[in-house]
């Protein structure tokens, strides 16, 4: 009874051991490496939820059954899918299993001398025999030559065993260990990171608490109370454009930042490639646009709304659309608006913007009355008007200062502001990934450009030399030639 139990035990342990050896074998690693490349392909061919959610919706609209199956196979979420994760986790377990033992072996080998000179040198590469008159002098010459060429020596009776290029293995291990470090960095970032976005009109103040964000996502283990307690006011935003093409050439956001809230504000400039950094938290300038300012009055002439409304840009010339909602009037009033920074008209396109800067602003409005649907419970976009329960009561194009009287009241186009979209990202793993990357390159360079080889010299009646180049790296022959020349040179000197 105990016997069978024992054999099962050994069987399980044996199986595990066998599986571990398979997993950490070079062939498995190679296959996993190629699999990882192949597994990355579908994500570049199908739209990914994290990047282009609208296109994914399009797939669902076009062919729901197919899209459903693709979704079950995680084809819209390739890089977070179980099968993709499985491949890279296996690869890295295999990597650790292979590289850690090699690291220990290598550390132990560092202080050691090269192995003894083998008996039969004629079986080695580049074996050659050089006539020698004075054995002792030749021996000394060979020793000096090898020392000068930075070989480690093991002097034996009548022979030298020399090796160089230990650094190759050092570099190789450094490279592979760095890959592990990169993965650790990536994992830390996705488990403990945070990413949020907010849109801010110039002049507004942003306080870094979860409720101030338009969208915010946390990593799996990121607690909520850990945001850096800063407050930021957008004091000025300047965009420069190429006057001929209208392409943006520079964006500058000037901010006044208190960190922590209540401390003396500091003036800080944020640019597209120059985020504001606090430790592992960074604040990026991501996008910008315009908010037209309007004043709405009711029938009695009392002001019910006065301020900017964020409009979203639709094209490179910043033609922007948005919705202005006024739930406090009866009936409720809403406007669908188009803001043109540099308005122009033509027959084909109607009103459009021909330049992204505000040179000739115009606000096109269509006014609606009825029920805005804000109380229905379903969340709705602040940029769109839900016209299901509304009736259009008129349209109007307003120049700066113009007023439109829509019957239930009036609306005046009084000005505009710029808004900026800030992205706030916390990634505590970034530094590990960066250092991993730097060490990976260093390790790679060291390992690829170090030549590992052994040379043996045996002095008897003649001098016998031979060598061995690890991984068949070329250049051994030339080195042996050099050594031979140095040794036969000695003969001539003695003549």
């Amino acid at each position, binding site marked *: 009874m105990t016997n069978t139990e024992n054999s099962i035990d050994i069987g399980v342990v044996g199986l595990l051991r066998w599986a571990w050896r398979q997993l950490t074998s070079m062939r498995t690693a190679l296959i996993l490496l190629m699999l990882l*490349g192949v597994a*990355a392909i579908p994500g570049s061919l199908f739209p*990914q939820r994290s990047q282009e959610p609208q296109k994914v919706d399009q797939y669902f609209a076009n062919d729901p059954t197919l899209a459903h199956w693709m979704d079950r196979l995680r084809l819209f979420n*390739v890089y977070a899918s179980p099968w993709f994760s499985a491949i890279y986790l296996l690869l890295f377990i295999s990597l650790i299993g292979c590289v850690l033992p090699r690291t220990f072996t290598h550390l132990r080998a560092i202080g050691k001398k090269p192995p003894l000179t083998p008996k039969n040198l004629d079986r080695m590469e580049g074996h050659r025999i050089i006539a020698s008159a004075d054995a002792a002098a030749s021996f000394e010459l060979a020793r000096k030559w090898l020392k000068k060429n930075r070989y480690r020596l093991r002097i034996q009776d009548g022979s030298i065993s020399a090796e160089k290029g230990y650094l190759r293995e050092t570099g190789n291990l450094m490279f592979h260990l760095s890959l592990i470090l990169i993965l650790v960095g*990536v994992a830390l970032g996705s488990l403990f990171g945070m990413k949020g976005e907010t849109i801010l009109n110039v002049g507004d103040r942003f306080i870094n608490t979860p409720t101030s964000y338009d969208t915010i996502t946390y990593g799996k283990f990121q607690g909520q109370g850990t945001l850096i307690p800063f407050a930021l006011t957008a004091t000025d935003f300047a965009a420069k454009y*190429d006057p001929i093409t209208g392409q943006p050439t520079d964006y500058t956001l000037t901010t006044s930042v208190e960190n922590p809230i209540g401390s003396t504000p500091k003036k800080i400039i944020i640019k597209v490639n120059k985020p504001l950094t606090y430790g592992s938290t960074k604040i990026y300038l991501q996008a910008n646009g315009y908010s037209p300012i309007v004043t709405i009055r009711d029938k009695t002439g009392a002001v019910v709304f006065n301020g900017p409304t964020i409009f979203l840009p639709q094209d490179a010339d910043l033609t922007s659309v948005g919705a202005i909602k006024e739930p406090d009037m009866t009936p409720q009033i809403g406007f669908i608006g188009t803001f043109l920074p540099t308005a122009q008209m033509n027959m084909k396109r109607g009103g459009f913007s021909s330049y992204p800067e505000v040179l000739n602003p115009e606000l096109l409005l269509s006014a609606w009355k009825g029920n805005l649907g804000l109380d229905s419970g379903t969340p709705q976009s602040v940029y769109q008007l839900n016209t299901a329960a509304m009736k259009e009561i008129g349209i109007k194009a307003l120049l700066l200062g113009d007023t439109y009287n829509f019957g239930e009241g009036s609306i005046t186009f009084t000005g505009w502001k710029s808004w900026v979209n800030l992205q706030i*990202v916390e990634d505590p793993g970034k530094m590990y990934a960066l250092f991993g990357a730097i060490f*990976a390159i260093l390790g*790679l360079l060291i390992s*690829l450009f170090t030549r590992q080889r052994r040379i043996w010299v045996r002095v008897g009646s003649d001098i016998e030399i031979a060598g061995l180049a690890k991984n068949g790296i070329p250049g051994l022959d030339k080195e042996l030639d050099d050594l031979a020349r140095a040794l036969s040179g000695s003969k001539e000197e003695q003549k």
Partner: protein
Amino acid sequence: MNSIQLATFSNHAIYACLAIFAVAFVAHTIEVAWSVRNVEGQAKTEFEFTRTDRAGRIGTAMMILGFLVLLVAVTTRGMSAHRVPWGNMYEFSITGALTLTGAYLFALAKYKLRWLGLPVSLATLLTLGTAITVLYRPSEQLVPALKSPWLALHVSAAIISGGVFLVANLVAATYLWMDAIEKKGPRPTWAAKIPSLESLDQLSYRLIAFVFPLWTFAIIAGAIWAESAWGKYWGWDPKETWAFITWVAYAAYLHARVTVGWRGKRAAWLCIFAGSTFLFNYIYINIWGTGLHTYSGL
């Protein structure tokens, strides 16, 4: 000169390059074609390169001249836009052609590989031709996100790696071709100038071992740039994904050689496969792909 004059000058220089590389191509073709000799009394044809050595030397001179003129064209293009000359696909292509010819001249000086002149001049001609006709864009300043020293490093490393990958692919393809020929019997005379199978095999390995760290650096510089511009150092954008696939493919190639001991045909196929992932990225993703990387301007 002002920007517009510089840009025009650069365009003229590109046209001049087209002419020069065309001459180089013709010279290299003559070098191969006119060396054909009908062997007396036999139905067989032989190649004798001594007869056309001058044509070959003209070809080399034209390649050097073309490289220099192209260097001027790329530099003036950059000066006209006040930035490094790789803001769109037209500029990628002309700079790519520059590194391709540069890599060839290097290989020529170091390994005496004149036989590569024919495919390289043809590839350069095709690249420049499509660049100036299909991909051409007027010289413009960059949008703010592209203004970063990391972009310059990222793209220059990527372009140089690309040039070397292409040369390695040509060498590997030649290996397979020569291998097929040698299967049938001894090499014909025209192929006598091409290095032995073993040297070809070694050469493609050394080229790749040389640029793999550079390609790794290109990817890392790209990640650093993405981090400063988009707030995310890696986003699995199609272009990034394919750069990663290329990297993995070449890592697999190096492993296959160094640790599993692949040589010869299998290694050559793997090399060509890895190179095709780079080409695919360059052509397909740039033109038809989507994502934040689509700056090709098409």
